[in-house]
């Protein structure tokens, strides 16, 4: 690549101009406020981590990690999510802290991306982790909090899809007992959202017609709580039915929160299997082509950092909400302009200070005699002129 021109910045990173920042802060403040009202306390972790610890444990694929060497030649990564650094803290600084622990964060994360528009290399995530609760109550609390956060930002018309990785694992184990490679192939197809490939794989295996149509039927298991009953009938595998019973209980709790209307059960939805261990969910807004939040249960991650406890969490894709969703962001108040000449400087500053004390926004500007009347009132709520020897004039 040729030497960059002066105005250029790397693909995938961006500048946030003031009007965008006010929307971003609006989202951030409202979401963090909700989380704090649910008892989740904020945590900040470093941008840089070791590749061998947080880098390896994170769910981000290796080629998407930003790696660099420090001055000793150790490989470092820019954090690609916040869940893994938090897991590291749980296993070290918070090791003795009694459970459950509720943590919230708002941070920039980094993913090395293909050079193409629409995929960001640095973006914000606002999220929460509930550590040490393995009941359906815990799962439901995290989903309820995600919904409360979406509502707090003012996103209209959103939906949450809820699934469980254990159901599929159990179902596949039942149909193809012990055949790990075949099971992996099918999971891969579903993870890549390749339903055609999934059906092709199924017909390539030696399955009875009943089993095949049962597994194909999986692709239709989407809807409300009745899906749970349908799914229970499909499988007698212990893991599969335990997963479904768990989801049913989560659903019950969601009903008590009175938010089940936002949620649909979707057993085709599966997360990254090496990472998620239980229920998984994703949130969608009608106006946006990609999910606005995702989360789930990851009971094995913390063990990698020496504290074997269960955890559930989610993160909002804050940038997507920022760019793609109309939000009721309040218009910022316009500042008051105070102009002054040399002799009235002291008086003007005192006036500005008292206005600021009242919480007003005040801009001061030195204005010589001639320019005094030319000052445009655009962008200012009010203009106050201080001139020596005459009283202050407001405009």
């Amino acid at each position, binding site marked *: 690549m040729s030497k960059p021109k002066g105005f250029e910045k790397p693909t995938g990173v961006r500048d946030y101009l003031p009007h965008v920042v006010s929307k971003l802060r609006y989202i951030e403040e409202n979401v963090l406020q909700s989380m704090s009202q649910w008892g989740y306390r904020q945590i900040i972790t470093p941008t840089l981590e070791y590749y061998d610890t947080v880098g390896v444990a994170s769910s981000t694929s290796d080629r998407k990690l930003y790696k660099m060497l420090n001055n000793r030649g150790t490989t470092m990564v820019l954090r690609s999510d916040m869940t893994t650094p938090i897991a590291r803290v749980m296993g070290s600084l918070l090791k003795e802290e009694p459970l459950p622990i509720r943590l919230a964060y708002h941070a920039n994360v980094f993913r090395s991306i293909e050079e193409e528009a*629409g995929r960001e290399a640095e973006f914000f995530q606002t999220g929460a982790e509930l550590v040490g609760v393995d009941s359906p109550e815990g799962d439901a609390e995290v989903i309820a909090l995600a919904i409360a956060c979406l509502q707090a930002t003012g996103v209209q018309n959103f*939906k949450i*899809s809820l699934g469980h990785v254990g159901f599929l694992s159990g179902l596949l184990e039942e149909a193809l007992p012990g055949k790990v490679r075949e099971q992996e192939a099918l999971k891969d197809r579903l993870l890549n*959202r*390749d*339903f*055609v*490939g999934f*059906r*092709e794989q199924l*017909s*390539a295996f030696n399955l009875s017609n009943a089993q095949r149509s049962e597994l194909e039927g999986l692709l*239709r298991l*989407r809807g409300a709580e009745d899906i749970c009953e349908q799914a229970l009938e499909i499988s007698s595998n212990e893991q599969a039915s335990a997963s479904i019973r768990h989801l049913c209980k989560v659903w019950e709790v969601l009903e008590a929160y009175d938010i089940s209307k936002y949620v*649909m059960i*979707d057993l085709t939805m599966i997360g990254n299997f090496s990472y998620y261990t239980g229920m998984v969910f*994703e949130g*969608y*807004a*009608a106006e*946006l*082509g*990609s*999910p606005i939040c995702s989360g789930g249960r990851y009971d094995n991650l913390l063990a990698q950092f020496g504290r074997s406890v269960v955890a559930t969490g989610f993160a909002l894709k804050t940038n997507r909400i920022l760019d793609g969703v109309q939000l009721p962001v309040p218009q910022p108040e316009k500042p008051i302009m105070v102009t002054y000449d040399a002799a009235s400087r002291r008086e003007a500053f005192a006036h500005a200070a008292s206005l600021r004390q009242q919480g007003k926004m005040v801009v001061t500007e030195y204005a010589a005699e001639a320019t005094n009347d030319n000052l445009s009132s655009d962008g200012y709520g009010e203009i106050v002129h201080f001139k020596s020897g005459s009283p202050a004039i407001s405009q």
Partner: protein
Amino acid sequence: MSQILKVAMPKGRIYKKAAELFLQAGIPIPTDVDESRKLIVELPEAKMEFILAKPVDVPIYVEHGVADIGIVGKDVLMEENRDVYELLDLGIARCRMSVIALPDWQPGIQQRVATKYPNVASQYFRERGQQVEVIKLNGSIELAPMIGLADRIVDMVETGQTLRENGLVEMEELFGITSRLIANRVSYRMKSEEIQQLCDQLQKVIQPSTANETQEIR
């Protein structure tokens, strides 16, 4: 209340076949829009809107969510690797992706492969432990081995007519190709009923032999 489905349709070869399939499924899509210069065709009676795009662009529109669903060849999906749902094999526009060369081809020291599908070709040869140089061309790929730009090509073969006319032979087949129905990640959930209904309608008219034939090709 059902919502409008935005469908990205590929212009050219696949359009007519896809339109026929939609007609059989009871969706009154005009079959001749391809010849007009219209880019967007509304079909309020079916609650659909068709966007006419270049085939390779269909998955891009769908991935970004400006179209809810789309129809595209498996060749494009394999090459582009987009994050979309692949819902149905429509069984139309059937052909295959193959390695093609002159009949007297012998592996040389520096092997070069010309193709419109550099990702597909690179991956295929890497998996077979062959290091080849891939040259991306945009059309008339058959020229490359004839005039010595590359010693082999990877391209789609429908009848094999063009190959025969130019004295080329098919050496290996990579995979079979048909057109697929794809869906955006969010639309698949936010418009799940509409999409499921369309899938069911199409499923009824898709040639039942499809799955088996694809299997044999593999």
